[in-house]
Every structure is written in C-alpha cells, then in structure tokens.
C-alpha cells in the first residue's frame, strides 16, 4: 500500500475513473496541460488525451453549462471550480439547472456531474478562495455534498461521487491537501455517500465535525482524555448532504451531550441543520443544549487574522467545558 497525501489520493481516484469509464470527462481552468493549480489532475491529460481531460475558457458559468449539456448527452463530467469562492459565477448551472434536471424532466434527463472545488481556511489565500460556502449547497435540493477529512476517504468518496447518478459537490480542504499522508490502497474502492465515520470512540460527549475540523476535534478530544479523563466521541460526517443522522443519534443516546464544529459562519449552515435534526430525533436523550463552535457571522476575513476567526482549540475547549457542565 502507498502513502498518499490527499491531493495524490484525489489524482489517483480521477485516474482510476478515467481508466474504467470512457464517459468520464475532466475539465476546468488549467486542469489539462498544467495539471491544475494544486496539481490534482497532474499527468491525466497526457495519459487520457485532450478529448477526455481538457482546459476550458476562463468562465465558470460556461464550464457549468458545459457540464450540464454533456451530462444530458450521457457523459459523466467531473468539472473543477478552481476555488470554491468562484461558485457564485456558476450557481445557476448547479442549483438552477443540473440539480433540478431529474425532477424537471420526470427522469428523462439526469446530471451525473461531480463538481470538485478546493476551499477552507488556514492557508492565507486571497479573498474569495477559502470561504466555507457549503451551507448554500445544503439548501439546494437534488445536490449531494461531500467533504472528506483524509486521503483514504477522499479517494473512496470521490470515486463514489463520480459513480453517483446525481450531481455531487465534492469539496477539498486546502489545508488537508498536503498536511498529512496516509496508507491508501492503489486499487479501486468506494465509500458509500451519506455514511459518517466514528473516528474516535468515546462515552461522555459527542463531537460532530467534517473536513479540517475533524482534526481540530480529535486533537481536543485527545487532550481532554489525557488531562481530565473525559472521553469524547468524534464523528466525521464525510457527507454533509445527506448526512448520517443515524450515527449521530446512536452516539448521542450514549453520551447525552453533543457539540457541532464547522469552519463556516454560525447561522443557518450545516451545524444549524445538524442541531435541528438531533433535536428532532434525540432531544429526550440530551442533558443540555447542543452547542456550535463556528466562525462568527462575518464575511471571510483577511488572511492575517483567519486563524483567530476560525474555530480555535481554545474555543473548542470552552465548548467542551460548557457541554460537560450541563
């Protein structure tokens, strides 16, 4: 088995899918000759040719329209939005068009499109690159949203996303691209969408997270176990739409306490929906309110202050404290 970074796992998944299914096409800005600004598509144009892996003109709505048009003609497009912050330019093609296609046509047409985009804070990007806009996607019926936290999951989830016969938004956290290596099998495998993973078992507190926040949560939980002997259970959602409420509820029934972590701003996002569903399914098992650790409700800040703006270990610890007091 090979040690891979997340970016290598992504490339490997794309390579395998291009190799096994001729209808898979890869396109976006700079993904061909250059292999992508993060090298996610490195070498793939050379291997599969410029009819399968190709550069597009610099216009996100055009790229989105290309994907929709190709999808209704039976292709399986994997399109890259160079940074997630550019999604506004093509939001109609995703939310207004592809995600509604199956419904509008009574299943005559479908859009098995995978939208890949890097996002996430902590790497000092210019504005509109790091924003966690996944909340917008959660409000889009017909669209699935996947956010892996490690190389192994990234590969299996990306393959499952490409295989899915409905549009899937696959978000890749930039801070995770090269910050960790993991054993990743080189052969094809997929991880079912919509299934969470309990990455750290515990009996005292449920911590729900996704993407880079999984690592923040796990670190905080390890710290707590060492210093206070309190065992937090950390759940990595992996897919945030639809998300695995079953696994969360099973955990809450055991721990009776829960907090939710997200990099995004506090209001009306993934965490809000998770809290609402915990209330619907498990409120009588709770000892206290489900708390959120999030960024404040401002626009994404300038690079010099982003580490303070994002959920810090200190704020996570404070939430642990508050949850355990109830």
């Amino acid at each position: 088995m090979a040690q891979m970074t997340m970016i290598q796992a992504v490339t490997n998944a794309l390579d395998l899918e291009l190799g096994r299914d001729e209808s898979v096409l890869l396109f976006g800005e700079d993904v061909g000759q250059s292999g992508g600004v993060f090298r996610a598509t490195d070498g793939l144009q050379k291997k599969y040719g410029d009819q399968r892996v190709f550069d597009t003109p610099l216009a996100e709505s055009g790229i989105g329209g290309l994907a929709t048009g190709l999808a209704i003609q039976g292709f399986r497009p994997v399109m890259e939005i160079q940074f997630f912050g550019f999604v506004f330019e093509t939001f109609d093609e995703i939310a207004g068009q592809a995600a509604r296609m199956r419904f509008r046509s009574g299943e005559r047409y479908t859009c098995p499109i995978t939208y890949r985009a890097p996002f996430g804070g902590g790497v000092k990007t210019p504005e509109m690159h790091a924003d966690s806009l996944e909340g917008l996607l959660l409000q889009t019926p017909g669209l699935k949203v996947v956010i892996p936290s490690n190389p192994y999951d990234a590969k299996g989830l990306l393959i499952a996303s490409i295989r899915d016969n409905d549009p899937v938004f696959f978000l890749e956290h930039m801070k995770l691209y090269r910050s960790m290596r993991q054993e990743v099998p080189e052969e094809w495998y997929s991880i079912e969408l919509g299934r969470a993973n309990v990455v750290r078992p515990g009996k005292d507190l449920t911590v729900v997270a996704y993407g880079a926040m999984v690592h923040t949560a796990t670190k905080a939980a390890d710290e707590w176990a060492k210093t206070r002997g309190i065992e937090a259970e950390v759940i990595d959602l992996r897919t945030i739409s639809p998300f695995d409420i079953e696994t969360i509820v099973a955990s809450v029934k055991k721990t009776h306490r829960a907090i939710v972590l997200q990099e995004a701003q506090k209001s009306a996002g993934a965490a809000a929906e998770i809290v609402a569903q915990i209330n619907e399914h498990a409120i009588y098992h709770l000892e206290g309110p489900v708390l959120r650790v999030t960024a404040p409700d401002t626009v994404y800040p300038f690079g010099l202050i982003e580490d303070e703006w994002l959920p810090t270990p200190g704020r996570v610890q404070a939430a642990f404290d508050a949850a355990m007091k109830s």
Partner: protein
Amino acid sequence: MSAVLEKPMSMTLRVLDEEGRVVNRDLMPKLTDQQLRNLMRKMVFTRVWDGRAVKLTRQGRLGFYAPVAGQEASMIGSEAATERDDFLLPSYRDIPQAVWHGWPMYQAFLYSRGHQHGGQFPKDVHVLMPQIIIGAQIVQAAGVALGFKLRGEDRVAFTYIGDGGTSQGDFYEGINFAGAYQAPAVFIIQNNQFAISVPVRLQTAADSLAKKADAAGVPNVQVDGMDVLAVYAATRQAVDRARAGGGPSVIETITFRYGPHTMSGDDPMRYRTKDMEAEWKEKDPLVRFRKYLEGLSLWSVEDEERVVEEANTAVKDALEQADRYPAMTVSALIDTMFETLPADLLAQREQFAGEGK
C-alpha cells in the same frame, strides 16, 4: 487614420420582400414544392394554435404561455432546417419549434399547466425542457454540441434566445465556448424588439446583435425574421456547416411578437404604439409567403382552410389528452429528486403519502 474604427453597417438578408417577391435569388434555398407547402402549413397551423392557446390561457385551461404570433417565420423556418436527431434547447417562447421537433402537443400543454409529465420527452424526441433562466440554454448548448463532437456524431445542437438575452453573460460565455471548441452549435437570436418592455436600443450600443458573435470569432448573420425562406436558408447553411465540422454560428432574426410578452398581465401599450404594431403587421410572415406560394400556384384557399381545420382539431385532441392525464402527487415528485432517496427525504415522502385529502 484612427485606430478605433467607425462601426460597420450591418446588413439584413432577405429572400422575399413584403409583397412576396423574390429579391435575392442567390440566397433562395433549394426546396421542393412539397417542402415549401409544408413551411406554409406549419406557419398557418402555428398561427391558429397560438390564437387558441391565448384563448385557453384566458379561460384558465392553460397555465404559463408566451404568445408567438408574428414570429412564425423565425421559429419554423429555423427548426425546419434541422434534422430530427439534432438537439433543441428552447427558451420559454419556443414551444412551436419544440412541437415541430417532436414534442407531443398534449405534453406541451401539460408543461404550460405545470405538470411534470410535460418534460418527460419520448426517447426519440431530442428536446430539452423550455429554459426559464435567460442564457442558460446557450452555455448548455455548447456542452451538448461538444458532446456530439467528442462522440463523432454528426448531430447539431440548436438553441434560441431573445434580443434582451444577448445582454446576459451566459450568452457570451456559451458562444465563446462553442467557438473555442468548434462545437456543432447554432445559436438563433430572435430579435423581437422588446425584452418584455425594454427596447433593443436600451440593451446595447451594438447596431446588430448578430455582430456580438464577432468578438467570439463565431460566424454570424442577420436575417429578415419575417421571411421564412431567408431564415431557412441561413439556418440550413449554419446547420450544414456545423454538421460538417465547421463549428458554430449565430443567426439573428429581425422579428416582432404581435401579442404581449406572456399571458400573465403584460400590457404592450405601456411600451409600444398601435402604429408600431401596424407597421410590423405589414411585414407579416404568413401574408408574404402566402403571396409567394400563390404566385407559384402552390397554395390555395382550400389549402388554408384545411390547415386551419387540422390545427383546431389537433389543439382539441391535445387538450383532451392533457385533461385525461393523471394528476401529480407530491410523493411521486419526491421520487424524482434522486435516483435513490436519502433517509430523511424518504421520511418526508411518508409524511406526504396521504396528501391532498
């Protein structure tokens, strides 16, 4: 010499003048007598059907409807130049092209009413649901056309937009993508002078909407949209070139809608005059083509009456078929959100199972 040149004059191509006289033999398309008669039949049929649809909308028997009278030459002349396997991406007014391309009329009526079955095109009908978002069909047409090119299929994607739609970013993006990939697409701008109420002169400083394609390196032409032979000739050339691997084209048809924007409350008298309407009716596409065909003894009063009867019967039958179609349910709609429903949506489906009672 100035580095910035004066605007070039654009020229509008036509084959027939208002009196049905041939003014440009070079552009005359090669059509059999039967094909010529069929163009007339489709235009008369569409005019009758449009009149019925307007009335049915007022009676509440149809839902959303955008009248087409005045634009028959532009719509039918262009669609007639395509093949059945070519893929149509219509906008909301382009219902006639979709029906002549194979969309059963009763489904078009169900679409108008807001029934999901409207968009369930038969497998051998290559049409997408009418686009509501101005310009989205243009970027999608580039994708459909690229798909044909990648597969080596000799099919063409063709799509329609209005004059106002050419102000939209997606219009530029779509024609530019098609040009960059030399994809087999034909983009037809139906310039009917008003985007709801806003006239072309407020949309752009360009003196021709077709010329906007120059910036994308896409061949383009402006034709008299009240002249069915000019529209056919231009579209045929564009379609043939696209099919032969020669890339995309943009065609602007200069036309006019006699009716309101839609049947949902628009009053054209707020933004145009009776005189202007009368002026355009002088150019009527049916009158002109009828004169031309009568001159060749290819059209008679009896022909006209037969088509009127044919159209009325077709509308009546389609309406009855639409009426008979089963009602929708919310739970059945939920089933078409995903191939496999997630647990939470399944639970919501259960909640709606006893709906409407």
